[in-house]
């Protein structure tokens, strides 16, 4: 569904992504792993078209649509969850009846059925779930979730992981960027561990990892606790 071929992105002297290649198949949950500054967010921005690679290509299968949930979502605080989804539905060019229908369904999916509460009264976890809901508007083929569990408490994280698992079960293809290895291990099928904009190693949950957990593989690959 998504093929990244030797992409490079430089910001002045700094090379944020350096000859990165990977591919994501339909229906799988793919993880981007790495420490801060590894180039994960730059890669996501290039997939979304917010940045353009200096070299290399990003190819999405024909007709593939994307949905994006940012790491630090901001929504107008005076809107309710339903109004927020209807707003982004309208921005996407959806018809009024369709966006109303989808807003109701998606709020139900992410457990935010209470339509009267304003976003200003939402907890971090609720805002993250709303961010995932807006990424699902228009039923995109590929979901890109950037740090969906960032800043969440234990309960919020559990709810988010359960939500991602539900989306996976529903057949969604997901690219997930997260620092929390335990979360990744629970819901992802494959992934790459990045450092300085390059792939250090690939991880496959179904492969023989020599009995090592993802955390152990990560520490070995990155070269100790930084």
């Amino acid at each position, binding site marked *: 569904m998504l093929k990244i071929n030797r992409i490079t992105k430089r910001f002045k002297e700094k090379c944020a992504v350096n000859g990165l290649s990977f591919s994501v198949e339909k229906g799988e949950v793919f993880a981007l792993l790495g420490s801060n500054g590894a180039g994960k967010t730059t890669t996501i921005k290039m997939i*979304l078209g*917010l940045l353009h690679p200096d070299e290399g290509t990003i190819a999405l299968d024909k007709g593939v649509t*994307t949905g*994006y949930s*940012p790491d630090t979502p*901001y929504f107008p605080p*005076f809107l309710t969850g339903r109004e927020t989804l209807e707003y982004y539905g*309208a921005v996407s060019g959806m018809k009024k009846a369709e966006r109303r229908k989808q807003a109701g369904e998606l709020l139900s999916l992410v457990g935010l059925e209470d339509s009267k509460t304003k976003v200003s009264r939402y907890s971090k976890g609720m805002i993250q779930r709303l961010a995932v809901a807006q990424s699902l508007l228009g039923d995109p083929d590929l979901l890109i979730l950037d740090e969906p569990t960032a800043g969440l408490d234990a309960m919020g994280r559990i709810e988010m992981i359960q939500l991602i698992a539900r989306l996976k079960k529903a057949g969604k293809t997901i690219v997930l960027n997260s620092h929390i290895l335990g979360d990744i291990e629970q819901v992802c099928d494959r992934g790459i561990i990045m450092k300085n904009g390059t792939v250090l190693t690939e991880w496959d949950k179904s492969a023989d990892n020599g009995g090592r957990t993802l955390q152990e593989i990560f520490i070995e690959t990155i070269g100790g606790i930084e």
Partner: protein
Amino acid sequence: MIAATAIREKIRKKIFIAVMVITAVLTLLLSTGSTTITVGGEPLTGFGIMMSVVFTVMHAVSCVMAVVISLGTIPAEYERRTHHLILTRGVSQARYHGQLTLANVGASLISHAVFMAGAAVYMISQGHASDLHRLLCAYVISGISIAAVSCLSSALSLTMGKLPAGLIAGTVTLAGITAPLLKTAQSMAGGFAGKLLGAALFVLPDLNSIQSAAAKLITGGKTEMHPIFTGLFYTYIFVMIIMIYKRKADKE
């Protein structure tokens, strides 16, 4: 939709409470009849003169408010990364920035309307309720200058940092409001300074002339059309800059 939501967000800001308070204070001062405005020690009397002064003051305050209201909208969208969720939905930068500018103009005109409501109260208190339609027309004309200031501030905030954008927008607005004073200074200065002021007056939008044209609608004088078209031309130029300019969506 983007513009409507941005306006809703704008009018919830504290700046609008300030607009309400300033209007209430000005209206109260004027309507009590105890306030006198003096020029060179001579008190101004008569509805026409007082209304011109009131209109000039409210137009000037509205222009400053337009700068304050319009300066932060576009930078805030990029700082909060709200633009990610818009631009990834196939909305072009031109449309996005255009909608945000529309929100700035709308919010600035709402602020101006609040001030004009104060002027309307003053007119009614002076027994000139039958002339309120003139005030409405004056609002529309003076709205051109408010829109020009708002579009200028939006364009500057899109192309540079908030501080330099604010300084330039504030200076241009101040120069536009005080254009007659600058013209006097130009004729007095002469030489290089005079030429410099002349060049500035030629380039900068003459907001005072638009305000004068609008004020004449209230007092029954002959309204000049040239400043109105000039104001529209400046607004068009600023909007074009906003639509053409491509901002880097993300730096890193």
